[in-house]
């Protein structure tokens, strides 16, 4: 199957799984509301009668923000602490949902049922969680090694040892590029591994990983091009939304801008699904 055909087929698949997109969007919205509603209440109780609060919406106002933080740092500190736990919870939930998504891709059903989706979410939860932890560990190790390499090339990270900062920039960008490349390929490999787990659920993770590596190495150009196409779609959509938002600045457009933001979130979810659908086609072929 050619890359563009894969992409088109995947987009069609995603369009057919609208209820799945809806479910994912709603869950994301509920989680985001658990953060933003308390924030709203906090603002309402502490600040909503201030004239400066009203005026601050007209643009970035450094003084307003800093005076606000200075005055409300205790309240904001508590808020950020809660946010940390919510992000952790969302991480777990994403692993959970990921299992449901892959199941829906690997074994599509005639009609979408919420109950069935959530049942599927439990299928590979533990394996996916372990794999996510392994990959995060891998990124940390890669980051650490590259940092050590950065140090070694420059003769230390002490500014007093660095001959000139131009060299530092060149080294930094080169290593950053290398890290991005490793990160990109690892994401691809992780997604492949998730599919492999769904196709061969009885195997140990290392076997899934090895098989995914074999699959990738036998046809790496196809996988990379497909992921670049996905990346391009994401960048293009982000750019369009950004440009549109520049035209609808101002309070009178606030709601329209918010709706556009929600459409953007839906599109991001759709791109995520397109990625998995397409990868499954490539995996099978």
């Amino acid at each position, binding site marked *: 199957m050619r890359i563009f055909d894969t992409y088109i087929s995947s987009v069609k698949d995603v369009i057919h799984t609208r209820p799945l997109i809806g479910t994912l969007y709603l869950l994301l919205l509920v989680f985001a509301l658990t953060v933003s509603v308390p924030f709203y209440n906090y603002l309402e109780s502490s600040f909503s009668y201030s*004239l400066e609060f009203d005026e*601050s919406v007209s643009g970035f106002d*450094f003084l307003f923000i800093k005076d606000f933080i*200075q005055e409300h740092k205790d309240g904001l500190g508590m808020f950020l602490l809660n946010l940390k736990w919510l992000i952790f919870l969302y*991480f777990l939930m994403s692993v959970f949902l990921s299992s449901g998504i892959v199941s829906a891709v690997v074994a599509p059903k005639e009609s979408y049922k919420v109950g069935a989706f959530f049942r599927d979410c439990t299928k590979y939860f533990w394996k996916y969680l372990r794999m996510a932890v392994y990959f995060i560990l891998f990124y940390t190790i890669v980051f650490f090694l590259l940092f050590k390499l950065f140090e070694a090339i420059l003769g230390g990270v002490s500014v*007093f040892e660095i*001959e*000139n900062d131009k060299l530092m*920039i060149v080294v930094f960008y080169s290593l950053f590029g290398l890290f991005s490349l490793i990160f990109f390929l690892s994401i691809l490999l992780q997604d492949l591994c998730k599919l492999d787990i769904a196709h061969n659920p009885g195997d140990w993770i290392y076997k899934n990983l090895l098989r995914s590596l074999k699959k990738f190495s036998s046809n790496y150009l196809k996988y990379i091009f497909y992921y670049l196409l996905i990346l391009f779609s994401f960048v293009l959509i982000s750019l369009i939304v950004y440009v549109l938002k520049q035209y609808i600045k101002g309070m009178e457009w*606030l709601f329209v801008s918010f709706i556009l933001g929600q459409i953007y979130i839906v599109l991001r979810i759709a791109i995520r699904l397109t990625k998995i659908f397409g990868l499954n086609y490539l995996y099978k072929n």
Partner: protein
Amino acid sequence: MFFYVHAGSAQEQLSPRIANYEIDLELDVVRKMIVAKQKIVWKNTSVDTIDELRFHLYYNAFKNSESSFMREREFPDFLTGDDGLDCPYGWLKVDGFKNEHGTELIEGHEYLYEDDGNTNDQTVLSIPLEHGILPGETRSFYMNWTSRIPKIMPRTGYNKEFYFFAQWFPKLGVYEAAGVRYAKTGQWNCHQYHSRGEYYADFGNYTVSMTVPQDYVVGASGALIEKKDLGEKNRWTFEVNDVIDFAWTCSPHFAVVKDKWEDVDLTVYTYKSHIDCTARYLKSIKYAFEYMDKHVGKYPYKTLTILDPPLHGMFTGGMEYPTFITSLHFCFLPPCLKTTETLTVHEFIHQYFMQMVATHEQEEPWMDEGITTYFEGRILDKYEGEKTSLIDCFGAQIGNGDFNRTEFFESGVVTIAPCSIKSRDFEHGGYGEIAYNKTAIWLKTMERMLGIETMDKILKTYFDRWKFKHPKTQDFIDITNEIVQENHGDEFGENLNWFFDQVLFGTGECDYGIHMIKNEEVKTPIGFVEDFDKCNLTQNESELNKRYKSEAVIRRYGEMYFPVEVEIEFDNGKSVIKKWDGKDRTVGYEFVGTEQIISVSVDPHRKIWIDKNFNNNGKSINKSDRGLKYYFYKALEWTQNIMESLTILI
């Protein structure tokens, strides 16, 4: 010939030229040493006979870990266990000191430590004279000295092949005659070298010759008057008149860029990899020249040298010396972060405040760093935009003045000490925040309270009256009171001492806010019975319209007080401005009529820049629905995007 004759220089004499130096030195880049001969021509302008001379030996601050300088700051880790050629310590030893008759006087020398009694400190040297210097007499002395150059010490030293020399030679203290600053009788003012604040010296002429390896390029205060080829070495001679100090630098890697502002020669010393940043230096220095020329006074020197040190030489960056400033530029920071411009402008302003108006940085740091920081904000806000003069990146905009204010109020040391104390008395922190930022904040408050014209007149008068002299705090206050009286009469009281008592000598905070807004319907009598048989009521006119008793209460939360304006808006679109002297803890304004108060704002134009919280300055009777909606939508959208991005790791 060793010594030049330059006392009768043709250049117009700007200063009293009390302490004059001719130095001839050789730099040994292998042993990291300087061997120098120094002629000192000193004039006794007091009515006393002076029988000793006192010198600053700044390099001895780096001689041991127990010097006052080292005790006062965190001891650098790299100063342990290293020896040989890379030994980072530094010192200066006076090997000989003779008078005009060739009499050796060094034998009687002693180190003084009057500031703190620290016997391990050798940064002040006293040399008794054989014959006292009579009032009005000018005498010459000849000194030989050797110094070891420290490695990466604050503001001076070497690293790799980069050398920077500041506070590097034996320099005379100031003999303050009775009546000069705080001196009741004649006295030497020659403090030990402390970790904060260094400048205070008499004006004089400098001729300095440096013999350095052939491949080294030298940059220094003043103008290059001669470069002589000595075979393996070159001898560079620089000259500058009417200044309080001299600094220089050298490296084999310097690229030199030249430009001009009016008749002033601008020279930038940078490393080749930084050559593209010189445009930023030159642009900012030119607008700083233009601004100071217009608002303060003329820059009278013919040269200005700007050093852009390499990254490994950044310990010397962001400093000021007569006709020579050091800035700092990081190639990895985008141009929308204007730290390069900020440093360049700041250090240039020092040419006026501490260099020409020669205040005492150790004793009255606010007069040096504070006034400079204030002008830094004014200049950058004008040329780089009030809201964008520090950062203008990706929609985030921060002005220099705004950042200064925030830095101060977030520091946690707002009330730790008054502005007026000595730099070394900020024992428990707050030096930078109070001497620099707080001064700039209260000067801006003063500017907005009095108006820019009065402020400019004060600063211009201060500069004109005190250039090439040594003013003290009270001199600034006196000029302010004089100009305010002239321009505003008694509008701000008999004088502005109440203002200085709070901002300069006090430690209080300022915070005005709206305490309460209330609108109550007035229960008017519904009528009068005139005919008891019929119980007819005569109606009041007021019955036709509802009437309200509206009240706004403004509160002074902080200790400081200033005259403030209060703007009150009514539901019929009208607004009134009330003037409040700001002294009482609260003030209430009552109105009775058909209109209701909808909002109140204290200091609506943010004149009182030292108010620590602007967000409580205005209050409305209605909730800001648009504000709540705006932040709710933004928070929701941001959270969704962050969470969706997180899925990439899963």
